[in-house]
C-alpha cells in the first residue's frame, strides 16, 4: 500500500470517526474513492479501527451495493422488478450477455468496458422494462433496442 493510499484511507478514517459513522458508511466511502472494496483496504481499516476484518467482510458480502472486484467503465444495470420481469427483463439480460460476450457468471467484460448488474427495482415501473446505463435511465427497452443503445458506449 503506497503512501498516497494510506493518506486517503487515513482521511476516510478520520472523517468517519468524527461523524460516528458505522462500517457500512466506511465501506461506502471506500467504494466511492476506489470504485470497489479491496482486501488490503479492509485489512488496513480493520487494524486501524480494532474492528475484526470479518465484520467488514460480512457486511461487504451482505449488501449488494458493495463490489469486491473492479467494475467496467460502463455499468449496465437491468431492473428486475416485478413489472420489468413480466415485461421481459430476463430476455434483455440474455441479449446483453450475448452482445457483450459474457459467459455465465461473468459480470464484467474482459476489456473492462462493461459490467452487467441487476437491481431489484428502480421504481420506474411505468416505463418497464427499465435498464440503466451508468446514470442514464432507459425505459420500455426491448432486446434489439438494448443492443443499439449499448453500441454508443462501445468505442
Amino acid at each position, binding site marked *: 500500500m503506497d503512501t498516497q493510499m494510506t493518506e486517503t484511507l487515513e482521511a476516510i478514517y478520520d472523517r468517519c470517526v468524527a461523524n460516528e459513522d458505522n462500517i457500512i458508511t466506511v465501506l461506502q466511502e471506500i467504494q466511492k474513492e476506489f470504485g470497489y472494496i479491496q482486501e488490503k483496504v479492509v485489512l488496513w481499516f480493520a487494524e486501524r479501527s480494532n474492528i475484526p476484518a470479518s465484520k467488514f467482510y*460480512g457486511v461487504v458480502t451482505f449488501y449488494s451495493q458493495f463490489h469486491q472486484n473492479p467494475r467496467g467503465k460502463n455499468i449496465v444495470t437491468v431492473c428486475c422488478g416485478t413489472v420489468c420481469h413480466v415485461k421481459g427483463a430476463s430476455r434483455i439480460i440474455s441479449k446483453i450477455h450475448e452482445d457483450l460476450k459474457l459467459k455465465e457468471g461473468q459480470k464484467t467484460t474482459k476489456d473492462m468496458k462493461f459490467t452487467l448488474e441487476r437491481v431489484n427495482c428502480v421504481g420506474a415501473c411505468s416505463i418497464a422494462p427499465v435498464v440503466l446505463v451508468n446514470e442514464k435511465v432507459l425505459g420500455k427497452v426491448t432486446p434489439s433496442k438494448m443492443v443499439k443503445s449499448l453500441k454508443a458506449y462501445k468505442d
Partner: protein
Amino acid sequence: MLNLNIDGKDVAVASGTTVLEALRLAGLEVPTLCHDERLKPFGACRLCIVEIAGMPKPVTSCTTPATDGMVVKTNSERLYRLRKTTVELLLSDHPNDCMVCGSSGDCTLQELAYLYGIRENRFLGEVREHSRTDHNPFIIRDQNKCVMCGLCVRVCDEVQGVGAIGFSERGFEAKVIPPFGHDLDCEFCGQCVSVCPTGALAGSLWAGKPRSGGVVKTDTTCTYCGCGCNITLSSHGDKVIRIDSVADNHNRGWLCVKGRFGYEFINSNERLTTPLIRKKKGGEFEKATWDEALSFVAEKLSAIKEKHGADSVAGLCSARCTNEENYLFQKLFRVGFGTNNIDHCARY
C-alpha cells in the same frame, strides 16, 4: 417474580428470564441448535419455538422474555410439524456421512434426525459444496456440515473478542468463513469447536481417533497457567486423545489453545521412561532400575549432608506438580535433611 403457566405447570421466575430458561426451570425441554446459555440469544434455528397464548405465531423461547401471566405450550402437533420440517430442511443441505464424521454420537443434528425419525427427505435438492481445506494445525473446518447456528461466530466475537470468523453472503449462499475466505488465522482457542453442534468444526488432533468405544473420560485440572481451568481428558488405552471442558464449571467451558490442543507432549516419544544414572562426572547416562536409582540418590544426598552439614543440600520443588507432591518434597528436606533450603521457580 413472574408467574407463568407452561404446559399446565405453574412456574415462578425472576424478571429478565427468557421463556426457554423458564421452561427449563420447570423441568421441561425443547430442542435447540443455536442456543448456548453463555451467549446472547440468537433465534436462528427455530427449533425452540413455543406457542404462547395471545401470540399469532409460534415464537422462539430463547429470545422471548417471560412475562407475568404468560401461558406457554412447548408441544403440539403444529410445533412438532414445524420442528420436524426445520430438521428435515437442515438435513437436505447436509452430507449424509455420519459414519465417517468425527462428531458422530456427539452431534445435535444427528440426535434431532433420530428424534424426529427422518429417514427420507422430502426436500432433497442442491447441497452447498465448499471443497476448500483449511490449513491450520488445530481446527478442521468442514463447511458442508455447517448449520449456520452462528455459535462459533458469536463465541469468537462475544467471548473471545477475536472475530476471526463471521457470516458472509446471504440466502442459500450464506456461510461462516474467515474474512476473504482465507485459512483460519486466530488464537486457536477452539471455543468455536467446543460449541459447534455438528462436525463442521472439529479438532484436527482427534480426527481419526476413537469416537466412543473404549474412550474413557477423566475430569481433571489443566496443567498450564494459573487460571486453573477444569478439563475433561478423553483417553483410549494410555493415550490422551482429546481435551474438552464442560460448560458449567468455573471457567465456563472455555479453554485456550494450550489447554485444549497442547496435550501432545503427554504421549511424546521423548518422554523419560526409565531412571538414568551418570556414574561419574562427564560420563554418559546409563539406564538404571528404580531401586538402583533411588538408593543411589538417597545415599549420595545423605552422604553430602553427613559430610557438609544439613544446609549443603537443597531442593527445588515444582510449581507444576501437585500440592501433595510439593508438601512431601519440602517435608523430605525439612525432616530428612533438617534444612529449610527449599524453594521453587515460581519467580520466573
